């Protein structure tokens, strides 16, 4: 197999990239100065070598602990539990959450063989335990069936600690249109309705 075929094959394994796009990217790289392609190759190698899982929260990081866990300005009383490290990025992009995170590394899914032992739950209990200063755990697992049952399980596991456990709201997407929303989403939005106040 030629070097060109090699790269096309590797690129085509990436999500969202078909064979045609992989070919286009390959020829694009060949037109660039060699240093350019070298930087890309280095960056790929570095990300695999340096990025690890934060020993505290489970986020992906190249320092230990991660920047969020190490930041003294973050509110240690608020802990947001998410399924995957990518979810931390999604919440961070909003710039609205000033607490810390806990990444489970998945969600309960018995048919896929994912049980409680596969999630980072013992570490979570340590973090929430006595003297930790955590006052509220926000359960931000996905609103899927598996995400919901994981939330139920977390609530059960955290109950003895006495910490306040909250669940992120479900409902209509901002900028959405009632007419085009599906029935389930509308029903859940109605269920999760709240009083209107001046502050909103």
């Amino acid at each position, binding site marked *: 197999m030629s070097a060109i075929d090699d790269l096309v094959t590797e690129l085509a394994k990436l*999500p*969202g990239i078909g064979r045609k796009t992989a070919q286009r990217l390959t020829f694009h790289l060949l037109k660039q100065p060699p240093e350019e392609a070298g930087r890309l190759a280095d960056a790929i190698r570095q990300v695999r070598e340096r990025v690890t899982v934060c020993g505290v929260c489970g986020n992906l990081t190249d320092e230990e602990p991660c920047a969020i866990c190490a930041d003294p300005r973050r509110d240690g009383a608020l802990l947001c539990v998410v399924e995957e490290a990518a979810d931390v990025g999604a919440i961070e992009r909003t710039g609205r959450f000033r607490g810390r995170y806990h990444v489970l590394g998945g969600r*309960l899914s*018995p*048919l*896929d*063989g994912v*049980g*409680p*032992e596969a999630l980072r*739950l*013992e570490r979570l*209990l340590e973090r929430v335990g006595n003297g930790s200063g955590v006052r509220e755990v926000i359960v931000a697992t996905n*609103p*899927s*069936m*598996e995400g*919901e*049952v994981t*939330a*139920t*399980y977390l609530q*059960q*596991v955290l109950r*003895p600690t006495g910490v306040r456990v909250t669940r992120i709201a479900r409902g209509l*997407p901002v900028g959405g249109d009632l007419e*085009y*929303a*599906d*029935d*389930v*989403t509308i029903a*859940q939005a109605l269920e999760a309705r709240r009083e209107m106040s001046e502050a909103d």
Partner: protein
Amino acid sequence: MPLVATSAVVLQTYRYSESSKVVRLATRDLGVQSAIAKGVLRPRSRFGAALEFLSEGEAQLYFHDSRELHTLAAFDVTNLRRGLALDMARFAGAAALAQVMLKMAPPAPLPAAFDTLTAGLELLASASPEGVEAAAVRALWVLVTELGFGPSLASCVRDGAAIAPSDGAPVAFSAADGGVFCRRCAPAQPPTQLPAEDYRDLLALNDPAAALPALDAPHAAAHRRLVARFVRHHLDAESLSALDSWEGHAWAILSPSPAAS
């Protein structure tokens, strides 16, 4: 490539590409089938939140006779079964039921098995908190029976002799042989000796018309073990993730209530 409509329950989904999922469905008219739901992962997918584990609805499938993977055109959800996610025991029982359907049902029309599956899910959703364990055990036995693997409980698996439990003697049961033995045929060391009371409970659990027996925790565990062993034996499977997790109360490990204190 005909478009067919059928009632269906979502048994499993997995990611197929950046925007699509493969959905394994228990359908009323076509048995267990796999279909690709194109674009389901896009933010404004026409499938919305419908293709969730255990949700029930009307599926429209482009049915490819020559292929194993069909195309899901629409899924209008009628029952999301969200309540099952609010209770670990109900959810674990429902997941075990879904796994039995996935592993034991053929890709051929089985309306009675489909109705038994949905009735089992309803039973799990509506059972009283004390009755959840018995409800799950019953739902599994009844589904296994409807799929053609039911145990022989009223008569001996060897010679067909009627079993008379009224004398209070234990009854021998073997998953490998597919049911109970009369006293004459019982092996010297049967895999399971059912005390008369447990045998009566087993009969009641297998009879959808009977009242659900009240099972305390050790008896519920024994009945879970019995049906799980029976299913594993008939599937020739060492382990079945959802069934094992339900049988062993996997979710109870970290729960400090029974263990720690």
